[in-house]
């Protein structure tokens, strides 16, 4: 359509969709030409007819979509052909990489979809998609507001990934899970280049395949594509073997191409080859096939962790995200996400954490909650195929949660327990596992997406229990053919040298069939056990991964470079950014001095000296931040010491920092945060692109009287002004300081800020003045 519209005089930058209002006969004629060439499905001219792209044209999505679908239907009059509502990308990137909220994308799609169905479209095609999250918003909107069949095609690069990094296996897993009717590939490349990608896709799914290639690549000067209709058709013939169900053309494919494809593929249809169904969990960028031991990291969980609980209460997402990044770096394959804590709105927190985690880790997530609303919030906000942890053998639980698992196409963990508690014997646990499997199958969840947790009991309390767990693992694997999940660390409560028990039990469990252990990947002993198991069970061929793991290990800890009494003092360690030394020296100092003395007479003066040197240009930014990092280590030691004594905290006061609504340049704000924390202030970081009301709410609810706002763009300064106005309007007394590249002291005063901070150092000066 676009190709033909350009031929008929459409200019670059003009909205082609508007032609259905201004020149419907032109569009109708183009449709007819394709129908005459043999098209059985034609796409209405609605690709970019969303409210976002139509903004400023004076036309609503409903108006344009209705006109376009009616035009296509007129062209089809008297023929059996079907009309597809064509839906392209919104044109703005979704959070967390962009600023368009998932829910906004959903609303934009819904408007098009409802109008399209009402105008008589026979199906909807999402095409040229590169972001799986955006596709998910569209597919959910289609499923929840229309009865139209849903087709999806995405656009891949020669490296088998989309621009946003989405891989073929993830696309298949997520879209199959969401219940689309057909899927495939369009645009970007010619038939020969797309073929290997299509082949991979055909091996991942049984769903009908769609291929719409470009007519080669456009000539930059003439805009003409370089493959002739006949060549295009002959390149398409190879696709017959994949059992292709829907075929067409994208950029550059005029009706002549369609005519040639029809002729070339006539009578060449083949059945889709059978595929082996595998267990796949994924993020858009990483598909993890469970065909060996895959480690689920357990650290995103507040149970028994004071620091994590505090982060949840304060909404300190960065701390939670850093736990995710650390585990990914330590080699976890999947991350468990548990944010349940009394007093915390679990569904809302789950939604926020899942959304944010996707921006920093590529690992698939396991949504860990017993609250159905939190489970749904997490699954809905996630752009991959997640695992739900967990259900159990209770019929009410199964009936409540399995439909959610099915709707979002997730995998599910069933705990081998029920209202009667955890059965003592392996046989009784197995019986529950069987019941869970039957219930899942009855809800339409495929067998390979059901995992069983045979449950770990504390061996010091119930010594016979460990053997029963191991036995149950083997029974579930051998008799049901299901993957098993198990949290292993509980085994060792109450015993000395817990790690020994933990990794010994882990090894035994893996030998009995456990393939999804939940553990702390930051503990080397646990990951070492997995590594060794993979060698011994002939999984890690030639011990390659094992050798690599231990080749990288540091030979020995570096020798301390000085002593407390001799060459080095805490000031030097801080100034040089020596984290290890800062910890060690602080521990030594605590033997002779109290915490506040160390902070006020040593750490802060040391930081001040570093700050002064930074101001004078004697050191530069990374050195300033390294120094802050070292003093952070010192502060951690001091905080621990205070916690042990039960003394009141050393916080010098609370400060909110936020990058304002619409802006995502937050590196400056993050530098300010690090530096302020190292002066002993408690910083509540609301993140970036923060709504006005969220800043006000946080200030009022957490009783904070100093707020720092940052903005980098001239276009986002108005939201800074709005945020300040809202803070003032709330009547909550607070001091506001602002910073960011385009700000000036004059402008800061004009929008009602109390202070302008040109850099992190000045933020500290302001904090000292306001909070002491």
């Amino acid at each position, binding site marked *: 359509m676009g190709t033909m519209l350009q031929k008929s005089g459409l200019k*670059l930058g003009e909205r082609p969709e508007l032609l259905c209002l201004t020149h419907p006969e032109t569009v109708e004629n183009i449709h007819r030409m394709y129908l005459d060439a043999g098209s059985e499905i034609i796409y209405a001219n609605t690709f970019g007819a969303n409210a976002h792209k139509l903004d400023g044209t004076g036309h609503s999505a409903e108006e344009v979509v209705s006109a376009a679908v009616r035009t296509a239907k007129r062209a089809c009059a008297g023929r059996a052909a079907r009309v597809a509502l064509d839906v392209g990308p919104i044109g703005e990137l979704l959070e967390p*990489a962009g600023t368009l909220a998932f829910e906004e994308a959903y609303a934009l799609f819904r408007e098009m979809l409802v109008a399209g169905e009402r105008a008589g479209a026979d199906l909807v095609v999402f095409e040229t998609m590169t972001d799986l999250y955006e596709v998910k918003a569209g597919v959910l909107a289609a499923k929840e507001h229309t009865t139209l069949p849903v087709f999806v095609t995405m656009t891949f690069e020669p490296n088998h990934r989309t621009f946003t990094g989405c891989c073929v296996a993830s696309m298949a897993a997520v879209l199959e899970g969401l219940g689309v009717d057909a899927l495939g590939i369009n645009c970007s490349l010619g038939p020969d280049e797309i073929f290997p990608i299509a082949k991979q896709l055909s091996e991942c799914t049984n769903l009908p395949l769609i291929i719409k290639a470009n007519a080669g690549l456009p000539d930059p000067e003439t805009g003409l594509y370089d493959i002739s209709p006949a060549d295009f058709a002959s390149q398409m013939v190879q696709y017959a073997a994949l059992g292709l169900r829907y075929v067409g053309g994208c950029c550059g494919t005029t009706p002549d191409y369609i005519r040639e494809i029809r002729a070339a593929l006539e009578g060449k249809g083949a059945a889709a080859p059978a595929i082996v169904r595998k267990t796949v969990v994924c993020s858009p960028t990483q598909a993890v096939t469970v065909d060996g031991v895959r480690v689920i990291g357990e650290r995103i969980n507040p149970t028994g962790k004071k620091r994590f609980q505090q982060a949840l209460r304060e909404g300190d997402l960065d701390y939670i995200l850093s736990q995710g990044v650390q585990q990914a770096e330590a080699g976890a394959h999947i991350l468990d996400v548990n944010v349940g804590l009394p007093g915390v709105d679990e569904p809302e927190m789950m939604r926020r954490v899942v959304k944010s985690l996707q921006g*920093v*880790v590529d690992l698939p997530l396991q949504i860990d909650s017993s609250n159905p609303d939190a489970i749904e919030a997490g699954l809905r906000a996630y752009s991959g195929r997640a695992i739900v942890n967990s259900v159990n053998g209770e019929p009410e639980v199964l009936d409540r949660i399995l439909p959610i698992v099915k709707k979002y196409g997730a995998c599910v963990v069933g705990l081998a327990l029920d209202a009667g508690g955890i059965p003592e014997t392996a046989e009784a646990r197995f019986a529950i596992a069987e019941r869970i499997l039957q219930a899942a199958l009855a809800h339409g969840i495929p067998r390979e997406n059901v995992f069983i947790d045979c449950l770990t009991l504390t061996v010091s309390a119930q010594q016979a229990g460990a053997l029963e767990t191991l036995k149950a693992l083997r029974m579930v694997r051998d008799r049901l053919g299901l993957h098993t999940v198990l949290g292993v660390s509980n085994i060792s409560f109450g015993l000395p040298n817990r790690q020994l028990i933990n990794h010994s039990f882990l090894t035994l469990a893996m030998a009995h069939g456990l393939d999804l252990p939940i553990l702390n990947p930051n503990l080397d002993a646990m990951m070492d056990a997995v590594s060794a198991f993979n060698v011994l069970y002939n999984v890690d061929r030639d011990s390659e991964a094992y050798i690599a793991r231990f080749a990288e290990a540091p030979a020995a800890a570096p020798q301390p470079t000085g002593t407390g009494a001799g060459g080095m003092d805490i000031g030097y360690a801080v100034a040089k950014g020596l984290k290890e030394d800062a910890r060690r020296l602080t521990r030594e100092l605590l033997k002779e001095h109290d915490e506040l003395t160390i902070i006020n007479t040593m750490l802060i003066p040391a930081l001040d000296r570093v700050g002064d040197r930074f101001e004078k240009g004697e050191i530069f930014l990374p050195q300033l931040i*390294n120094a802050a990092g070292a003093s952070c280590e010192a502060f951690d030691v001091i905080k621990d010491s205070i916690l042990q004594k039960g003394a009141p905290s050393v916080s010098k006061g609370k400060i909110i920092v936020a990058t304002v609504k619409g*802006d995502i340049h937050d590196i400056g704000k993050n530098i300010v945060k690090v530096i302020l924390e190292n002066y002993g202030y408690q910083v509540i970081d609301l993140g970036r692109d923060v709504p006005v009301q969220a800043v006000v709410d946080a200030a009022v609810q957490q009783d904070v009287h100093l707020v720092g706002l940052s903005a980098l763009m001239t*276009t986002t300064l108005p939201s800074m002004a709005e945020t300040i106005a809202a803070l003032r309007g709330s009547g909550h007394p607070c001091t506001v300081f602002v910073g960011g590249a385009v700000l000036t002291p004059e402008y800061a005063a004009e929008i009602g800020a109390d202070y302008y901070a040109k850099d992190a150092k000045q933020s500290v000066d302001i904090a000292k003045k306001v909070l002491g």
Partner: protein
Amino acid sequence: MEPVLTAVNRNEVLKYLHYRGGEVPPETEAQLQEAMDTVLRTARPRYRFQAFGIERADGLRLAGTSFTLPGEEVASLLGECTHCVLLAATLGGEIESLLRRAQLTDMARAVILDACASSAIENVCDNIETEILAQHPGMHLTDRFSPGYGDMPITVQRAFCEVMDTSRKIGLTVSASGILIPRKSVTAVIGLAGRPQPKRFRGCEYCSLFATCAFRKDGTTCGKS
């Protein structure tokens, strides 16, 4: 095709990091080296450019499009040109997630990586200019001029990216507030002229940081002029 990202300019990175001479300590030097390597390894640069005739009927309209370039300064930049090139380039989303991850685990590294990425996208643009020149033998290029410079409002960004179809062709999108996403990206117009063009638009007075720039207050520049 020649690689379009060839180097990270160490001096440029040091300037971005507020380095004003003196010793670069060895530990920082090591961080610097690691960051430059990581950025070169992680970036997936993508770009496109297209030449347009300039129609001077009502404002500066690009031939065959509905797009006009607003502002006095771009008009002056393109004063001697009958054609101009629109250029759009991005380092890709991989760099974005790298920077986000680093900010969570090691802020100093994040700051250095950020500076390296800024330098890398400049390097990409420089290399693209060479390619543009090769396609237009005998022509000379003006400076690059981007939405948000001088009197060209940042709000032009959206129409610019529509005309260049950047979201579809190279995965470059514009947020509601005119921010390019992925962030380490550049859009710019470059004039094609028959004779060498003076360097004039990369000076401090055209920079959006003019009012607050720490370098300028110290009497130096960030090195981009």
